[in-house]
């Protein structure tokens, strides 16, 4: 076989960096830079550089029925039987945006036939669309960061650095000092006046299934009050694309609410499209327990992930890079794959036809997507009017001698990739107090058990431990732990 070259975008986050995936005659993958991509000029971050591992053959999903391999027809037929019996009020469909607009649109069709809607894991209270091109960052006079660009969205670092060169002042809101920020302020929503924003300011925040919705609202209110622009970064390759087929009136839930509904037994059947609640939720174990309560779990996915282990049915689609389709990135750019794989749309079409809906083709879906984009351009939805909630964001009380272990969301870590990020961040005082040794380990204890971790010294507030990985000792985004030398 000849070498295949696919033009695609990075599945890491919502920026949508252009790149090539090369597949040589032996099936070995490598990446190639696409310097003509206006989004990233061919530049890629850590995650992008490691895509050959992400897309490695062993990570591809396989068709399964009740945990044993099956052919695709059987998988789809069995799924149809399940969906025929399912009650629409207790059936949920979830797609957070890890696939093409076309598959998303097809998934919406399936939802309509089932008289339900596709959930995207983000509450409809503050749904928003991309506002401006990321290049606008370079022109801002004052930038407030509610994210850590280095760890979360590395490809905007260069924009921020250019802004700084152009004279912008950059403030980071949070606990971790950032090299590019002029100052780091640990502010509560009530103190946001101190940020001194005006119409020439830009707020950069992010919105993902685990975002604190109260915080997001507060940020939106801050923008409305001060006239500052706001750029929400999103964590999935097609997060914004999921918004194309969403009906404004539909009630959307956050992922946590959805999982709670599953736990309470309100949802008995779940269909997920390239979305893994186990990877997405901060607490793997709790998410697994919740999903086990489902009667039926149907997974349509290109990747094998923890949720495919639990699924009754797995319908495998081809890896994202080889799919035909389009994506909508964080700046509203429509990006296109050069691949030709249509297995996802075809499977959804068969499912839809099986339960009494219409069959459809990829081209029809593509047409609907383009139409939706046109409609969106004409009818730009304004960011939802949000009222600031009075109750502030509560952070857990940390008792003396205990520490707060905080999970710093890193979109790329959501895919449980292997990375040399195996350490926690703590400050020098902690190291001195516990008598930790350079190159040694720290022992962390919580209700969940113990864990030995390597550590890195960073200028953090006392009592705080940061991790960029989900750790088994953590029970959520913030966990109280004790630590000792080992």
């Amino acid at each position: 076989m000849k070498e295949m070259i696919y033009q695609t975008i990075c599945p890491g986050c919502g920026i949508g960096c252009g790149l090539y995936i090369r597949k040589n005659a032996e099936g070995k993958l490598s990446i190639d830079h696409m310097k003509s991509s206006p989004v990233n000029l061919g530049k890629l971050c850590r995650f992008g550089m490691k895509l050959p591992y992400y897309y490695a053959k062993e990570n591809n999903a396989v068709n399964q029925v009740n945990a044993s391999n099956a052919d695709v027809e059987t998988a789809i037929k069995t799924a149809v039987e399940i969906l025929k019996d399912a009650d629409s009020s207790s059936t949920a469909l979830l797609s957070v945006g890890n696939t093409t607009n076309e598959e998303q649109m097809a998934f919406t069709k399936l939802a309509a036939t089932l008289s339900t809607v596709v959930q995207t894991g983000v509450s409809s209270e503050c749904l928003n669309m991309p506002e401006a091109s990321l290049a606008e960052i370079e022109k801002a006079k004052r930038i407030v960061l509610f994210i850590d660009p280095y760890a979360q969205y590395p490809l905007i670092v260069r924009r921020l650095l250019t802004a700084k060169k152009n004279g912008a002042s950059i403030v980071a809101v949070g606990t971790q000092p950032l090299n590019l920020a002029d100052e780091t302020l640990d502010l509560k929503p009530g103190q946001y006046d101190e940020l001194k924003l005006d119409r020439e300011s830009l707020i950069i925040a992010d919105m993902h299934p685990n975002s604190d919705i109260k915080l997001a609202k507060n940020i939106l209110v801050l923008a409305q009050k001060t006239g500052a622009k706001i750029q929400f970064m999103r964590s999935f390759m097609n997060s914004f694309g999921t918004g194309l087929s969403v009906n404004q009136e539909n009630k959307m839930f956050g992922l946590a609410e959805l999982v709670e509904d599953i736990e309470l037994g309100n949802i008995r059947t779940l269909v997920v499209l390239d979305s893994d609640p186990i990877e997405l939720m901060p607490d793997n174990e709790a998410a697994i327990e919740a999903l086990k309560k489902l009667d039926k779990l149907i997974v349509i996915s290109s990747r094998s992930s923890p949720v495919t282990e639990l699924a009754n049915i797995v319908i495998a689609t081809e890896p994202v890079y080889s799919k035909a389709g389009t994506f909508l990135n964080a700046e509203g750019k429509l990006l296109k794959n050069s691949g030709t794989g249509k297995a996802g749309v075809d499977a959804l079409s068969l499912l839809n036809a099986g339960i009494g809906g219409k069959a459809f083709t990829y081209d029809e879906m593509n047409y609907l997507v383009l139409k939706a984009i046109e409609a969106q351009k004409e009818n730009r939805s304004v960011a939802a009017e949000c009222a600031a909630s009075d109750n502030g964001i509560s952070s857990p009380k940390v008792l003396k001698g205990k520490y707060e272990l905080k999970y710093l969301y890193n979109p790329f870590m959501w895919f449980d990739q292997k990375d040399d990020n195996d350490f926690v961040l703590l400050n020098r005082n902690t190291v001195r107090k516990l008598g930790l040794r350079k190159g040694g380990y720290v022992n962390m204890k919580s209700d969940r058990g113990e864990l030995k971790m390597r550590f890195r010294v960073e200028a953090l507030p006392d009592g705080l431990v940061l991790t960029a990985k989900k750790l088994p000792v953590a029970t959520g985004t913030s966990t109280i732990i004790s630590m000792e030398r080992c």
Partner: protein
Amino acid sequence: MVEVGDKVIGYSTDPGVRNKGASGGLVTAILAAALEKGLVEEVVVLKHINEYEAIPIITSDVEDVLASAGSMHTVPVNLAKYAIGKNVAMPGKPCDIRGVIEQAKRNEVNIDNTYLIGLNCGGTMYPVQTREMLINMYDIDPEDVTGENIEKGNLIFRTKSGEEKGISIDELEEAGYGRRLSCRYCDVKIPVNADLACGNWGVIGELTGNATFCEVMNEKGVRLLENAIDAGYVEIEPASDKAITIREKVNNVMLSMGEKWSEKVFTEIPDGERTQYYMEQFADCINCGACKEICPVCTCGEDSKCTMYHNLEDNYRMSMFHMVRLMHLSDSCIGCGQCTDVCPVDIPLTTIFRRFADKSQKKYNYKAGMTLERPPFLEVMPR
């Protein structure tokens, strides 16, 4: 027949190739002949995607070769790594060829069955920036462009309607557009390190724009050219003295322009400030490793000193990764600019590497990637 040192003017005998390829299609025809007559198994060429984008492919299909014809100043890739472990012929800018030679020094490329057709190069440009430049400086819709060329210091774009518009490169660079920084101060414009050194400099008279000046640099060059002549793909005639002089003149003008840029870019940083300067430059590094991955002279593979001894949990003032690479590249950096291109946080890596490499390479009168006769000298005994 052809001999080493010959300077000839040549063109393709196929009228289609001659008109389509840049400057008479000589290089395209030589590549096609090398492939058809079995001199090589495959060739590395750029597959044309649009005016601003092309991707290197390794192919044994002559059709791909013919389709790849044309100048590509907005595709700043380095082809060296695509030649690894293969029996190929490839066209290349001086920096592509230098990359291949550095790879050959480290036994990654078998130079005896790798045929290198060098192309004169005055510099390459960034595709996205070029689009912007077309709108702002040329007042041309980037989608209307059908071709581009550099002539007498002017960058000329041709549009669908057949119009041509040229602006001097100096003016463009003044405005922040134009060539990549590493190209501006590059000091190899004619690829004398290749087997054949080809280009349109020195093509004069009625052949202007319709033929290629070609210098045969070594025995492999003789084989390449003779193979193409025997196959009836190309015709050559000796270059006149005037042509040779003009080629030299263009080269000298380009080189002196490069020297001026070099002085401008490499201003001395005072002794007490350099450590701080370098630490600040590397402070934004996100450890993506793209600079190593794309480096055309790096042959270490995945497990190499720079990555294996670098650990994210270390909070050193400077990362071991960059320290090791600064050392490692001081004898092999060819200044191609790839690392700067792909750096997601815009660290001016090539300029930094050149600051280190220039000092060492000048001291030992060594220029990386120019000849196989001098091995990587970090590894050899002093004479």
